[in-house]
């Protein structure tokens, strides 16, 4: 609706307005129902009414009037709804996505412009309308960050598109919104909206190849990473593992395990020691690592900024 | 409608029609709304199936003939009509079984692809019901 464009409402603003119109109508209807149920209960209670009441069978005119009013109100809301849908969900003929997100039991995110591949922590620049492309690599998931845009299902075999905008910088939380397996509850989303400069810097950092390990422990960790076949599932710029999240810049992320645990050395250590204990049902096997191996791997992975 | 038995069968068949509509929709969906190529229809012989179908339909007429004969106590006619009905039914089944065998020999099975899945499910249930 021209009104929405005139007011320069964001997608979320449009939905909020629509919801407010709805709440007003709902409050009126609900208020009337509650009022009349209570009022009639009190006014016409049997102890106050003598004898048998008049056997009124109905009022056709009244009913037709109510039906007609309801149809008009419905038409009004239909027009509002259709306009809002157009505003929010108009995807160009050949969409060029800014981010391609694929759902697994974790989030895979690819930025085609520049070929950045990351996992779980999504960065976007503030003030820009981003186009997301959504699909799934296993079961149906659904992308939802309430403050930034609509919910959209991620279905294997189908590619969906939606718009996504952050007007203020900050961290925005969301969650997978279609039951996807044992740990659906722990498949959460964190979107970090930054100024264009900061975003460009982040992107440039992500494009750099993995930092070579410098400490002795970290070097040992890198060797273990290759020996223990971690690379067959996880990519660290070069290897082709795509089953698990890309770890090239793992240490630059604040949370891990789909926004479940803070990315600290202790948490990473506990995770590698016994993944099923931390997040039961994940695909990551327990490699039964010795304490020394654990320390080395943690040192390596935590150096990957 | 006063005959509750007839009404029951009519309503039951209408209800079952919805079951088959759903199975047909599955097949139509794969054909028209996915990129898959219909492997089954390319291998079906419409003429052959059509002839067997006509024989099956004929058997319902012979059944009706038998029913009318029975009502008039024409025992011999009834036996001929029922025999013909059963024979026609058996011919149809043989035709159906050989059709299935033919498709299986071409590697078109329930598990070959979506068209195999939907074809065998649809025709199988139809036969079963």
């Amino acid at each position: 609706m021209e009104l929405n464009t005139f007011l320069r409402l964001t997608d979320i603003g449009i939905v909020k307005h629509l919801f407010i119109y709805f709440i007003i109508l709902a409050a009126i209807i609900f208020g009337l129902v509650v009022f009349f149920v209570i009022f009639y209960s009190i006014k016409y209670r049997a102890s106050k009414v003598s004898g048998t009441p008049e056997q009124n069978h109905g009022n056709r005119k009244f009913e037709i009037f109510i039906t007609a009013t309801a149809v008009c109100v419905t038409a009004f809301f239909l027009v509002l709804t259709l306009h809002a849908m157009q505003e929010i969900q108009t995807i160009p003929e050949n969409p060029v996505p800014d981010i391609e997100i694929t759902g697994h039991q974790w989030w895979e995110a690819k930025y085609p412009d520049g070929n950045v591949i990351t996992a779980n922590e999504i960065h976007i620049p503030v003030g820009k309308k981003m186009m997301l492309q959504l699909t799934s690599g296993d079961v149906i998931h659904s992308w939802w960050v309430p403050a930034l845009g609509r919910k959209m299902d991620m279905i294997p075999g189908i590619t969906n598109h939606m718009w996504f905008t952050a007007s203020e910088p900050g961290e925005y939380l969301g969650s997978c919104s279609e039951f996807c397996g044992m740990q659906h509850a722990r498949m959460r989303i964190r979107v970090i909206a930054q100024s264009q400069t900061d975003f460009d810097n982040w992107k440039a950092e992500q494009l750099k190849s993995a930092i070579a390990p410098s400490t002795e422990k970290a070097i040992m960790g890198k060797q273990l990473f290759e020996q223990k076949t971690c690379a067959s599932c996880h990519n660290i710029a070069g290897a082709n593992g795509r089953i698990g999240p890309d770890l090239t810049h793992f240490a630059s992320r604040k949370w891990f395990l789909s926004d479940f645990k803070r990315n600290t050395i202790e948490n990473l250590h506990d995770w590698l020691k016994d993944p099923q204990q931390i997040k039961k049902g994940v695909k990551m096997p327990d490699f039964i690592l010795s304490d020394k191996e654990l320390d080395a791997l943690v040192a390596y992975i935590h150096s990957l900024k | 409608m006063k005959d509750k038995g007839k009404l029951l069968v009519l309503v039951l068949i209408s209800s079952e029609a919805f079951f088959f509509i759903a199975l047909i929709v599955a097949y139509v969906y794969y054909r028209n709304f996915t990129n898959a190529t219909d492997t089954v229809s390319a291998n079906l012989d419409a003429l052959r199936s059509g002839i067997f179908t006509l024989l099956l339909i004929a058997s319902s007429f012979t059944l009706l003939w038998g029913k009318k004969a029975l009502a008039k106590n024409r025992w011999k006619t009834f036996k001929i009509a029922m025999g013909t009905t059963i024979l026609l039914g058996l011919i149809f089944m043989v035709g159906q079984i050989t059709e299935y065998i033919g498709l299986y020999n071409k590697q078109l099975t329930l598990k070959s692809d979506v068209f195999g899945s939907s074809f065998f499910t649809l025709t199988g249930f139809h036969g079963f019901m």
Partner: protein
Amino acid sequence: MSLFLDIPETEEQIPDLKTDRGRLGWMSSVDHKQIGIMYLWLALFFFLVGGLEAMIIRAQLSVPNNDLISPEAYNQIFTMHGTTMIFLVLMPALIGLGTYLLPLMIGANEMAFPRLNAFSFWMTCLGGLLLYFSFFTGGAPAAGWFNYAPLSEQNYSSTLGVDYYTVGLILTGMGSIGAALNFVTTTLTLRSPQMKLTMLPLFVWMLFVNAFLILAAFPLLNAGLFMMLIDRQFDAHFFIPSSGGSAILWQHFFWSFGHPEVYILILPAFGIISEVIPVFSRKPIFGYTFVAASTVAIALLAFGVWIHHMFAVGMTNTVNGFFAASSMLIGIPTGIKVINWIGTMYRGSIRFTVAMMFCLSFLIDFTVGGLSGASFALVPIDWQLTDTYYVVAHIHYVFLGGTAFAIFAGTYYWFPKIAGRYLSEKWGKWHLFLFVIGFNLTFLLQHILGIIGMPRRIYTYPVLPGWGTLNMLSSIGAVFMFAGVAFFLWNLYTTLKRPRTATDNPWEAWTLEWATSSPPVLQNFDKLPPVHSRRPLWDLKHPENPDKKLN
């Protein structure tokens, strides 16, 4: 052996459970009254099971990051809770009341097909048994009550749970179809010759229209379930995207059943309300024709709205827009009914029995449910709130605040007729107040939880502002409901021990079931009063002011 069943002698009583022959008599019964009672006991049993599942869910969710039960257990429990409540509680309860009352309300002595009637009941039992047997075979189904593919396919759900789900629901579905066949044929062929279709009590009318919904919708579910079973057990590819199938197709099949199903669950409830409110307002229903006609409108529209369960799937604005329009329209006939029920109270003489008070609670709480449902028709709102606790709030307001309250109202209202005794009004009030207050406490707040971002079907949640408090309050409400149900059970137990003292028509009601003893003898009616309007017993009692003659 004769193909025809004997009509029992007038005076022959329902068999006594205390004797072996009596017990066998119940198990082999084809009498619609006994079958109706068995359906109700089945529903009560599974209500307690489903309720315990709900208590476990609320206990787990009462605090953030809780580990009371494992995610695997939780996912099975929430799946079973939904499946149980819908297919093993609400359906059997409504079908049970219908099976008991429909012949009585139309002046018939039996259902049209008594053996089909018994078959339907026992299929429902078997389906329930199989569904729960899954717990012993490695795990109950854990993919949610709507069982989306490909999560529910063999590679992601490798226990037999989903297989038992499909088979169990196919069987209960066949039971429902059998019951519906009986409702249609009985209403059309066995009603009192004087009773025209326009004179049907509204409960009967709703059951009749509802039966057509069942007959059209359940086969769609069965087709989908068979395809899912064939996928899982015979390696077919119906719903597996990676081998050419379509995950969305499952959703289409499921919801083209699922949406009519929710109307199947509410129409008989509307029927109960339409019987109880007039009696306890001492006035006929306001606008019978509109209530009856709006029912048909709902039934027709019910098949044209299912995409509103799939607005977030990513279909075009054209498709979504069409279904937004149909979904908004379907709210109108429902709203008309609420106005008619309130209009019945207008200038009436209202008796506050427990049955009536459940109706009043229904009016208010069902309206909340109906309104939250209508908000989903406004598609962009759905794009925010679908799959959140706002939906959970909505469904419980319509299923519990709607259907379940109506079933409770019907139970208190018809208990004297069915069991020959009156449920205690005193214990009934404890049941009502605890349950209604608990219910609103639990579910009203869940609207807010959905709006602030809590998705559904999660076994736990992180520490976020408001989530912990709202969830804790919601769980406390569940405790109140538990207490309310305990009072209801106590009421049932103490009442059933008393002798049968109920009169034929204790509430001064007007439909034919009240024209025979409480409970009726096996043959139902000895003789019928004349039927010239919708309220034959009113006409009999008020010859100076009868209802308009309709035949």
